[in-house]
């Protein structure tokens, strides 16, 4: 059985998504299958990462509570605040009722909002090139980590002899700066190079750039092509996005 199938099984097992007999068979297999035991150990590391995320979520929600609890003045004026709050709610409800006559409710997600929710910034490791020396590569990587996109576009933007990783970095810097046309042009360059390491990902990000510009037809064409990709993760993402569209 492939690693992917076993990973799926482990995820389903821990999410209680297995029927009792399948669960029993899985536990039996776990007691003797070394590969599965290793995957289980990996799952535990992944789980500790998820715990850390949950902890961050709790801390973020607690930080949002700080303001009302720390203010004693607010406590003293709570009656007044409650009245204002109710008044505000009543006004909002009235406004929604009036607006509801004219507007669809709820508002569907826009293509741009969907693109933003699917965009995941990659990590970059720049390769040696004629264009940049070691110091410049370090500076570019640091700029990306610090979200200093202007530095990247200023450093690489004027050159027509970029390596593929540099082209990719520049394209993402333009994406982050919402310069969609420039991002699309560079992602297209990467697609045209037809290098398996870059082209499929570039197609995915070009689809997101198209969506940022409300060009759903072009985005859909790229996503449909990605449905046939060898990269399972990319294929799944493309399907998710197509479904959401």
């Amino acid at each position, binding site marked *: 059985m492939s*690693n*992917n199938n076993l*990973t*799926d099984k*482990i*995820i389903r097992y821990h999410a209680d998504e297995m029927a009792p007999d399948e669960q029993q068979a899985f536990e039996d297999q776990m007691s003797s299958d070394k590969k599965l035991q290793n*995957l289980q150990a*990996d*799952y535990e*590391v*992944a789980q*500790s*990462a*998820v*715990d*850390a*995320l*949950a*902890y*961050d*979520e*709790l*801390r973020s*929600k*607690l*930080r949002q*509570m*700080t303001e009302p*609890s*720390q203010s004693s003045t607010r406590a003293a004026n709570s009656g007044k605040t409650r009245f204002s709050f109710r008044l505000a709610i009543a006004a909002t409800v009235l406004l929604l009722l009036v607006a509801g006559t004219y507007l669809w409710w709820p508002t569907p*997600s826009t293509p741009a*909002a*969907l693109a*933003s*929710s*699917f*965009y*995941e*910034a990659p*990590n970059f490791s720049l390769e040696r090139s004629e264009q940049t020396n070691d110091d410049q590569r370090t500076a570019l990587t640091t700029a990306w980590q610090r979200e200093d996109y202007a530095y990247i576009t200023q450093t690489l933007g004027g050159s027509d002899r970029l390596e593929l990783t540099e082209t990719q970095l520049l394209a993402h810097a333009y994406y982050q700066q919402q310069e969609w046309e420039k991002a699309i042009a560079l992602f297209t360059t990467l697609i045209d190079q037809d290098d398996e390491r870059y082209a499929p990902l570039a197609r995915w990000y070009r689809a997101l750039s198209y969506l940022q510009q409300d060009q759903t037809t072009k985005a859909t064409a790229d996503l449909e092509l990605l449905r046939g990709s060898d990269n399972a*993760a990319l294929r*799944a*993402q493309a*399907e*998710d996005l197509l*479904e*959401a569209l």
Partner: protein
Amino acid sequence: MAVTDNRVLQRIEKGGESLEQAMHELYSDEQCRGQALSLLLRMGAGEQDFEDVFQDGIAHLIMNIRKGKFKGESSVKTYLISICKHLWMNKSKQLANRKALLERQPPVSEERLNSPEELLIYQERSQKLQVLLTKIGDPCRRILSLWSLSYSMDEISELTDYKNAAVVRKKKHHCLQQLMKMVQQSDF
């Protein structure tokens, strides 16, 4: 165990919106806050330190309850105050060590002031784990954190830009697969 404890425990175990209610109840419990504040001030904490420690304490308490580490041997509030006490002891030890380092004095102690619940596991992360969490991307981080706190797929869909529960479910599964793949490719 007091009745209110049962309610808080049930809400925390249920997760999602119920968990948020319990968290709010604990956070705004003036009696509990007052007792914890008075204890930590006696132990040398400032008021801003207290606010940080109290919030950390509630987050740890919730994680420990959800992980089954709270055995009900004391009330939830006593347990929370005890967590805050240990968190402050750890934090003040770190501050003292940092000060000692700056003044080139020997550190206070190499021994860790952990409670039996290993309080720092959620806060302190290895660099490798930190890299994993960065690589996985914002949408996955958000979905997995909410899912881990038992928000329903419908609730997550409302809190994010995903169209419906089905899309969230697929995305969650995909994010977990991605995370597992990253773990397999790293050398944990």
